[in-house]
């Protein structure tokens, strides 16, 4: 029995390692190429080490402005999403109403709509109401598209905070808004962090929304400006493209690690989407 178990573990380990190597190859390309003075398209050990690629792209035009735009868009969108979702989740979680169930079902329905499909009509609508090429318009749309899932997650986390604690505060004369801010939200800190980080990560990586709704180059976030490495300049500087990809991807990977750690290595979203 133990020998059989050992050989089975070995087989599982080997299969997983094969998959890990296959998945790691494209990742290895971006990391190695970013420090390779002669980066091409294939994975290889650099024949030298250079930070020249990073030096070349760390300029206001190429990196700082797009990243700042990303930060404004995603920060604004996330703040709006989290505030609206926290407010909305409160009555849904605390008060009984006949409208709760239909509302939650609508929200759940909306979480899985393919937002990509409506981008052309959103573009047409934004042209009509003069919101096209504005940061605030894009922020509002980001928030609205992320809200259904955020409300759903937030409500589930809020349900985990016992009502008794709040009732004690009410007895002491606290109002509902006070108890939400002072008691409920602090107690659901990890949940709040998950909703915030998840919304931010989704917006940070989103390409299609800013690609459609923003037009001026100086407003473009990193997800769209990365396209400039191709096309207009003819020869692609792959080393620089890789360096930019590394800088652009690092924040979301760090945020993910932060949240995953905080939840004890587990991942709450897998559970959350199951209901």
């Amino acid at each position, binding site marked *: 029995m133990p020998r059989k178990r050992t050989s089975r573990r070995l087989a599982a*380990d080997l299969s*997983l390692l094969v998959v890990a190597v296959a998945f790691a190859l494209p990742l290895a390309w971006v990391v190695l190429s970013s420090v390779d003075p002669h980066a091409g398209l294939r994975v290889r050990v650099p024949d030298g080490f250079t930070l020249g690629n990073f030096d070349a792209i760390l300029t206001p035009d190429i990196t700082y402005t797009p990243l700042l735009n990303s930060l404004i868009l995603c920060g604004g969108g996330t703040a709006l999403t989290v505030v609206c979702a926290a407010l*909305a989740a409160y009555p849904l979680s605390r008060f009984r109403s006949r409208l709760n169930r239909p509302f939650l079902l609508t929200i759940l*329905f*909306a979480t899985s709509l393919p937002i990509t499909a409506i981008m*052309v009509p959103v573009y047409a609508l934004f042209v009509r109401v003069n919101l096209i090429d504005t940061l605030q318009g894009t922020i509002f749309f980001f928030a609205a598209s992320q*809200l259904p899932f955020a409300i759903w997650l937030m409500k589930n986390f809020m349900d985990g905070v016992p009502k008794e604690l709040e009732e004690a505060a009410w007895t002491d004369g606290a109002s509902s808004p006070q108890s939400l801010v002072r008691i409920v939200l602090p107690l659901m800190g990890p949940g709040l962090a998950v909703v915030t980080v998840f919304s931010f990560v989704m917006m940070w990586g989103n390409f299609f929304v800013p690609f459609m709704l923003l037009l001026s180059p100086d407003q473009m976030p990193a997800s769209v400006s990365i396209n400039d490495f191709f096309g207009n300049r003819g020869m692609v500087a792959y080393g620089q493209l890789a360096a930019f990809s590394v800088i652009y991807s690092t924040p979301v990977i760090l945020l993910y690690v932060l949240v995953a750690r905080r939840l004890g290595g587990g991942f709450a979203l897998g559970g959350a989407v*199951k209901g």
Partner: protein
Amino acid sequence: MRHHRPRITRALPLSPAVVLLLLFLAGPIAYCVYIAFTDLQLTGQAHASFVGFANFRHAFQDAEFRNAVWLTLVFTVLSSLIGQNTLGLALAALMKRASKPVRTLTGGVVITAWVLPEVVAGFLLYAFFRREGTLNALLEWLHLPRQNWLFTLPVLAVSFANVWRGTAFSMLVYSAALDEIPSEITEAAEVDGAGGWRRMWHITLPMIRRSIGTNLMLNTLQTLSVFGLIWVMTRGGPGNKSQTLPLFMYEQAFQNSMIGYATAVALLLLLVGSLFSVVYLRLLRTEV
């Protein structure tokens, strides 16, 4: 002190979310339904006129539209139903047996691919599949025939890219589901002499069927709306050999400036999405 507040005040915190959702989500969807029935163009006329079902009739007669539907189907079945779903389940099952360092390493790599921004993932896979890229370097080393993947088999390349990027989600869902199966059940089956495949088929799969259902729904919905990944890798080309519905819609709107027609396509995509969404809701029904 009791709180007897009027219902209106209680519902007040919902209003910012509801306003945002109505203005920026329900509004565009309603507008989508409206302009799908008009001949709205990108430039030119200020007023679009109502054309009834003409856009939809046009779509079903349009060979390019049918091509996009077919490619969307191939892309979804290959990458979501077969790729992400099966690989995710296999990884989750293998991880239960593997040693901890291997488990952590593989999980980390697969999840990193998932957390990366869509466009970056697109570039990485573009580099991987290009003629002078890593895949061909590997094939050369193994003395296998090479080809220009993004030209010869673009749908396969973008499907593989979607598997690379999306498998982590299935892996996480299935890991959670497998953890919930009581170990006594699998051990009992083992004692009764059921081998690995039979246990998988007769015990594990039936026990996690609800997770399979929800995972398939969500994978399919995500795959239906993939745009950036394909855009970066192939722009839908060569020709329209990897032009799925979202890319077809984009091209109709901005290259051919037919917003009305593009929106009709968008509406069809939205309807298919809603259908999946409703099925997903029914799967979850007992839990809401």
